[in-house]
């Protein structure tokens, strides 16, 4: 049997992003959990908004999330162009997925 040639990931020099990640001790469990939770909440919000414009309390009830959490994520989505205002309902603003309003 001939000698094995290793061309795996371990043999190549580390890229700067990997060096920085190692230097900072990798991604913390808290950050991993936070990013996962962000993904879960965004999916819920997008799903609810697919049914039409909603207010923050309506989204909170439908997605079973605290309204303050809904507002923060909704405003993040608004800032990055995924959500827009779609009128008012009493004391609340209605929000819609961009392009669906």
């Amino acid at each position, binding site marked *: 049997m001939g000698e094995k040639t290793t061309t795996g990931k371990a043999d190549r020099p580390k*890229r*700067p*992003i*990997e*060096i*920085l*990640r190692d230097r*900072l001790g990798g*991604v913390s469990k808290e*950050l*991993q959990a936070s*990013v996962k939770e*962000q993904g879960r909440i965004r999916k819920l919000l997008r799903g609810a908004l697919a049914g039409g414009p909603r*207010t*923050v*309390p309506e989204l*909170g009830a439908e997605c079973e999330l605290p*309204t*303050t959490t*809904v*507002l*923060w*994520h*909704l*405003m*993040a989505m*608004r*800032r*990055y162009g995924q959500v827009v*205002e779609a009128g*008012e309902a009493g*004391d*609340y*603003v209605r929000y819609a997925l961009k392009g669906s309003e």
Partner: protein
Amino acid sequence: MPEIRKRYDALVIGGGITGMQAALDLGEQGYDVLLVEKYASIGGIMVGLNKVFPTLDCSSCICTPRMAESSHHSHIQVQTWAEVLKVDPEGDGFVATIEKKPRYVDEDMCIGCSKCELECPVDVPHEFDQGLGARRAIYIPHGNAIPQKAVLDAEHCIFCGKCEKVCPTECIVFDQVAEQVETRVGAVIIATGLDITPMARKPEYGGGRLLNVMNPLAMERVQSSNGPYGRVLRPSDGKIPRKIAYVQCAGSRDRSIGVPYCSRVCCMYSLKQALLLRHYIHGVEVTLYHMDIRAFGKGYEQFYQRTMKEGVRVIKGKVATIKEVDNNDLVVRVEMLDEGGRVEERRHDLVVLAQGLVPAWHAHGVVACDEASDGFMATPEGKINPSFTTLSGVFVAGVAAGPKDIPDAIVEAGEAAMAAAGRLQRTGWHKVPAVAAAAN
């Protein structure tokens, strides 16, 4: 970005309105200035404010020209994302040690296109919006930031590499490290500005736990057109607030929290915000509870009268507690001072605390200047040389020396710049030819 040179005429610590003005006043006289700012953009607190009192001019419209002028001035070098670690006297001047924090972005190559920010999958509470809005782990500090360059928050980076892949100029530099640089300067101006008194110091007002009790800087951002919500909403549920209260002296004139002094600007910023709320929300009730209103500046008393004429209720009353009730509404328990001290409980759906000003920076361990008993920089010749500290050659301006409003801070910046220029001439550190010729 040019490297920090070995020698400047003056070092200005802090790139807010005071620091920029001091740097410009020196730069215009021909002195070479290094302006060091700890945040990723210059502009300080002022660029995040909505409007200024009593004129209701747009705050960033006043601040951003100063930012651009400082940034492009031939005699001013701006170093953001950096901290002054040490200032030691040496001969007629000082040796300053400055730490440049890693931005993980090549500032010369970044074109501020935001593609990295748009691609980044991690949302983080944005400091510029007092945590009410989001930014990404890699981000441009804000829309008016100077420089318009991205900065990577490595603590929130998941190292997915998306920013690197999408960057059109390949400016992401993951192997940047912090760098300490020494430079020699002939004079130093401290313009490190303010923080607000922490809410945790007022447990009777919720101690920072109540969702609908806001700090005044958060209200500035909420009122700003480029703020986190794009309109005035309350943080607990996005409701358009209809009954809003301001609680004055919530962190000033209060020995129990170590802030016995009047912060001088709270009455006016509260009146300004209250008036603007009346403009922004149709039919909103705004009530301001105060011990006494201090409207001492040019046009301030007239502004106070205008605020009341435009429907803001100003009640002489001392707020004892703020408690949360159903629907995250708030009940304010207030002693009505003009009604014989009758105690009343009044319901609001949003409360803003008029928190006071404390110094944002302390000299201890950095430069051998004394602080006064209130924590601000000591100014032993306050009557005749208000910018002089206890260390010759080190000057102070703006809120670093004590609470004050923007016009007073700008005046003081000019005074500090002239005092620094005088020292540079006397010591011969840098004799500006025109000035030297005129003197001869």
